């Protein structure tokens, strides 16, 4: 567990969900931590292509997420790097993490699996190990409960 995974079921065909992920208009419609509108979004949806999303956050924050498309396989898989050109949290300065999005057709729509990994340099370097055991997950759950 070098990051976390979120899963959503969406009552839409995979191509529509994939467009929402890989077009500027699509990204502008949902990106960001709250309901404030995205300032601008750009994406060049091909391997090696760049994306850039400028978005505000409540309390006057101003952020720009940038990255490179590492894999794009419409309408089922998107992998990209993630970092901030400005804004973000101080602890993230200079960090490059990784986002993987997989779409799987299910009855009535699609299941989206969103994984954000490489959230610490050390973990990112050791990500080939991927050997997070049940023991660690248990610890995380335990302390997550305490922290929550």
């Amino acid at each position, binding site marked *: 567990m*070098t*990051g*976390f995974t*979120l899963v*959503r*079921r*969406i*009552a*839409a*065909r995979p191509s*529509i*969900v994939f*467009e*929402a*992920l890989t077009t500027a208009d*699509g990204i502008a*419609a*949902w*990106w*960001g*931590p*709250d*309901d404030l509108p995205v300032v601008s979004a750009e994406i060049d949806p091909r391997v090696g292509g760049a994306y850039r999303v400028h978005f505000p956050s409540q309390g006057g924050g101003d952020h720009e997420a940038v990255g490179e498309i590492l894999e794009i396989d419409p309408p089922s898989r998107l992998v990209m790097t993630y970092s901030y050109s400005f804004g973000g*949290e*101080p*602890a993230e*300065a200079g960090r490059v993490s990784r986002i993987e999005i997989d779409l799987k057709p299910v009855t009535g*729509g699609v299941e*989206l699996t*969103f994984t*954000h990994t490489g*959230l*610490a*340099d*050390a*973990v990112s370097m*050791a990500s080939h*190990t991927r*050997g*997070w*055991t049940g*023991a*660690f997950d*248990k*610890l*995380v759950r*335990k*302390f*997550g409960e*305490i*922290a*929550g």
Partner: protein
Amino acid sequence: MVNHQTADLDRVFSALVDPTRRAILARLEVEDSLSIGALAEPFAIKLPAVMKHLDVLGHAGLITRSKHGRTVDVRLAPQPLREAVDWLARYERFWSPALDRLVAYAEAEEARAAEETGE
């Protein structure tokens, strides 16, 4: 300027990357406190190797060691792990509402596309 918080988190995560160290932490979670000898017992590695792992865990602030006579007791120090979990949770709090909006947007687009094609 060195970001101390980030450096601390890196130490915690890199300490957690190793399966032996995670196993040590998992045991300390249930045992409260263990001597180094007792900790080393289930592992197929020599005591000096265990000591090295304990140094890494100690450096990351994940354990505390205290001397009692001739034995050293090791205890879990949960705070750095809590901080690491909080840090991950911040990202989760960032993406979770965004994905909820993505669901709403894609479903509205789907409804529109279905209407256009008369499906």
